[in-house]
């Protein structure tokens, strides 16, 4: 149905052409799912834009053809030859081929209702009266899983959650029953349980309408569960293409092999390392030492103890004319201990309070109640009671690595200034020391010290994240909080940074609190894991216990929703239900919190705890 032959696209950057696609060829047959796999910058999205005729203004198709056989008209057109704004192309776009984008937050207009935006595509391409159109739109919304489609018609995108917005987006792409749908990273911005439901929805709709799907993704787990054919792209070229089974079992090209080894999987053997596509080498120097945990008098004390932390936010009411406030429990009675030298993982979906928790520990947000006790090996420090100079001195013990490497570094400071800043703030050493320290930090994160005079913009995302890590290490802290440090990075880079963090922990004897929404990443790096949902820790266990024997329904839902990059462990789409596992009201006894005043941890032995209603017995769990 779609045949791309020797497609080449150039971008015009300040007068000189930069090739984005070179000699790309592949086919999509009717009703088939083809996955286009590659890291960012590999040309996957440019390919989809070329097919849709929505390339940016500075891009031109230099060579090749995009042949599209419309099943409705039976005509064969070369999209590459069509003027993108011609009526014929506009009819194909949205009518025969439609697209859904990655970001459901920004892909919909904020000032038009969902119904308006969805029905618009219908009115453009199909003969339908206003009334019919709205009825069809409502039916479509029902089909993509809106509980109250008639109400949703008049809602605005900002009133919907990310998952519902993506459903609206899918409804918009499906409303004309296109013969090909392009899904450009449709679930990358979504939580794992919602991702599983959206993938299920796409599959069902695809089967129902018999349309072809071109799935663009970097996630091999999604590929393994969705695709029939796979096209692997790298630097604007097709590296390898073929049936899914063939490619996954017997990858030929070095790049695909490397990619497969770089993805964290649940079945990694103890001690097995990920192999990044590009390896980096960390070197320790004279200035930064391992924290001598065995020489401390009280080394066996927990490094950090958090007890009963709670934080409530007050939001203004939903309507502009009312002054009512709504309460949001961001963190609710969170207690845990972090042992010296371990990596304590915190996993949960967006909005579960994990970032708020980390900021409370860092003293960036003041909790409503609770205690944070830090033990430096000699004495216990009450973090919440610190003030002024004591607080400043304490901050050397605990540092932070941020999620977004693009906004975490000041674009107006050189790398040297960025690395030196903590030393200046804490008045550590003279200029010579600081220069030497910065050089050593660069080597430590596997970067060339000659880059010290550059500005952040000249580095890639992975390199920036390493600079962020180096900055966190400048004061030689004993505890580092990593807030989603790899979620903004490509899979190949992700392995690199994870390995670096692991090595640094070994070499420097660091303790980590590692926050992530990605279960595979948490599985790879953490020793003990706390699962958070709606501000509460619902389950806490050593890694293997948690993954082998999850007890809490939320943990179970989370684990079953992860798409594995293995053909042998397909997602069981039948088991994925529409009910939200992250909705505490739907949990069964003894996990329910509805109508129950207090919940508490039940000890299941071996450091495995699960949150249940007070008074329930271990025998209740089996039920």
């Amino acid at each position, binding site marked *: 149905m779609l045949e791309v032959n020797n497609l080449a696209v150039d971008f015009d950057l300040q007068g000189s052409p930069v090739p984005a696609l070179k000699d790309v060829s592949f086919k999509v047959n009717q009703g088939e799912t083809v996955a286009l796999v590659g890291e960012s910058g590999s040309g996957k999205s440019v390919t989809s834009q070329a097919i*849709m005729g*929505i390339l940016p203004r500075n891009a031109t198709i230099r060579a090749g053809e995009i042949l599209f056989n419309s099943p409705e008209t039976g005509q064969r057109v070369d999209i590459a030859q069509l003027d993108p*704004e011609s009526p014929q192309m*506009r*009819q*194909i*776009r*949205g*009518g025969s081929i*439609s*697209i859904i*984008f990655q*970001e459901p*937050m*920004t*892909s*919909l*207009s*904020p*000032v*038009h*209702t969902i119904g308006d935006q969805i029905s*618009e*595509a219908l009115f*453009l*391409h199909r003969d339908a009266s206003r009334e019919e159109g709205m009825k069809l739109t409502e039916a479509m919304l029902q089909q993509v899983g809106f509980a109250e489609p008639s109400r949703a018609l008049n809602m*605005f995108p*900002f*009133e919907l959650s990310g998952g519902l917005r993506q459903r609206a*987006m899918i409804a*918009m792409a499906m409303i004309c029953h296109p013969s090909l749908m392009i899904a450009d990273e449709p679930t990358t911005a979504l939580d794992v349980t919602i991702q599983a439901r959206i993938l299920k929805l796409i599959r069902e709709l695809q089967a129902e309408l018999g349309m072809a799907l071109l799935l663009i993704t970097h996630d091999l787990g999604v590929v393994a569960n969705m695709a029939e054919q796979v096209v692997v792209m790298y630097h604007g070229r097709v590296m390898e293409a073929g049936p899914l089974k063939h490619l996954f079992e017997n990858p030929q090209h070095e790049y695909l092999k490397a990619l497969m080894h770089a993805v964290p999987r649940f079945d990694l053997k103890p001690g097995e390392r990920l192999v990044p596509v590009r390896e980096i080498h960390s070197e320790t120097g004279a200035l930064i030492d391992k924290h001598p945990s065995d020489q401390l008098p009280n080394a066996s004390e927990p490094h950090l103890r958090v007890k009963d932390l709670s934080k409530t936010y007050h*939001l*203004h*009411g*939903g*309507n*502009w*004319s*009312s002054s009512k406030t*709504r309460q949001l429990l961001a963190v609710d009675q969170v207690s845990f201990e972090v042992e010296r030298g371990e990596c304590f993982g915190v996993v949960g979906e967006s909005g579960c309070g994990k970032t708020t928790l980390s900021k409370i520990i860092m003293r960036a947000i003041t909790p409503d109640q609770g205690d944070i006790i830090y033990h430096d090996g000699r004495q216990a420090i009450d973090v919440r009671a610190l003030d002024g100079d004591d607080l400043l001195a304490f901050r050397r013990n605990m540092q932070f690595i941020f999620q977004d490497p693009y906004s975490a570094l000041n674009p107006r400071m050189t790398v040297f200034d960025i690395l030196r800043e903590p030393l200046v703030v804490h008045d550590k050493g003279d200029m010579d020391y600081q220069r030497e320290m910065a050089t050593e930090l660069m080597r430590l994160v596997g970067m060339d010290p000659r880059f010290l005079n550059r500005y952040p913009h000249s580095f890639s995302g992975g390199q920036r994240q390493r600079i962020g890590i180096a900055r966190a290490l400048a004061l030689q802290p004993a505890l580092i909080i990593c807030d989603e440090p790899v979620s903004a990075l490509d899979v190949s880079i992700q392995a690199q940074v994870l390995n670096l963090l692991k090595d640094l922990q070994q070499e420097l004897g660091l303790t980590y609190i590692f926050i992530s929404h990605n279960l595979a990443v948490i599985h790879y790096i953490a020793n003990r894991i706390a699962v958070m949902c709606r501000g509460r820790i619902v389950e806490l266990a050593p890694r293997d216990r948690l993954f082998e024997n999850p007890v809490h329904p939320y943990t179970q839902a989370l684990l079953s929703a992860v798409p594995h990059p293995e053909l042998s462990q397909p997602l069981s789409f039948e088991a994925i239900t529409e009910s939200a596992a992250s909705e505490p009201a739907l949990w069964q006894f003894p996990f329910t919190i509805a109508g129950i005043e207090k919940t508490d941890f039940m000890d299941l032995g071996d450091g495995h705890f699960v949150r249940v209603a007070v008074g329930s017995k271990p025998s209740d769990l089996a039920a």
Partner: protein
Amino acid sequence: MLGYILRRILTMIPTLLVISMLVFVIIQLPPGDYLESHIAELQSQGESVDENKIQFLREQYGLDKPLLHQYWVWLSGMLQGDFGYSFEYDLPVTEVVGDRLFLTIIISIATILFTWMVAFPIGIYSATHQYSWGDYGLSTLGFLGLATPNFLLALVMLYFANVYFGTSIGGLMDPEYIDAPWSIDKLVSILEHLWIPVIVIGTSGTAGMIRRLRANLLDELQKQYVTTGRAKGLPPGKLLTKYPLRVALNFFVADIGNLLPTVISGAEIVAVVMSLPTTGPILLSALQSQDMYLAGSFLMFLAVLTVVGVLVSDIALALLDPRVRLGGGVSK
């Protein structure tokens, strides 16, 4: 919605009260009052001063009373529609202002319409044809408009209008119509003269608006939802007006509140240069001669315009943007 508007109107009352105090205090700030500067002026011209009349006026308007009392008299008068008495013109303020206020409003509205009509197409063209010759040319023109002082432009325009169209210099109508009763001919004469001050006063505002509209629209054109619209197969014109332009309008609506007072107060120098029969020149002289009731009434008029303008733009914004209307204080 109604409750909101009512609350907004209620909060306008203390705002205006505070402004009235500020206005009064600032006018009273220079030493002396109108009568004193009037006496000084007469004496410097060697004329005698009628002590009795001065004394009468002083008592009549309470100038010998404490400040607070004077303020109260002024404020309570205004509330009853009595804006006081202009010493300089020897007339009640309402009579001095009268026609001038009407003409001021005509010029202001014409200027605003001119600004919109010129700025909109140019701004949209510049944004959709970014870095084209048209964009560069119009931007250069816009910068020239921003940079040219209004009074200079006024003089140049007057000269050319007189040479090529035979329009009389200055004023808003041919001299024979001044103080004449309203008639069709008078209106035609006004329209003949109107376009010069409108262009002069509107130029810099237009240029500024072109730049802002262009910048806002460029931002919006980059957004993902525009691509979504394209991917639906929308024709370019409809795509532009339905999505990015609609969102880019927000800034424009938010601007309405500032527009009225800027146009009116920005026109004063031009009005003096072109000797327009608007309120500008009177305000200037009233401030100079400490003709306090006249000046105070003017400033209050401007204040009311600003406050009402902001209210209007807030309501319009809420009607236009559902995020304002329904979003409340919820952040993501």
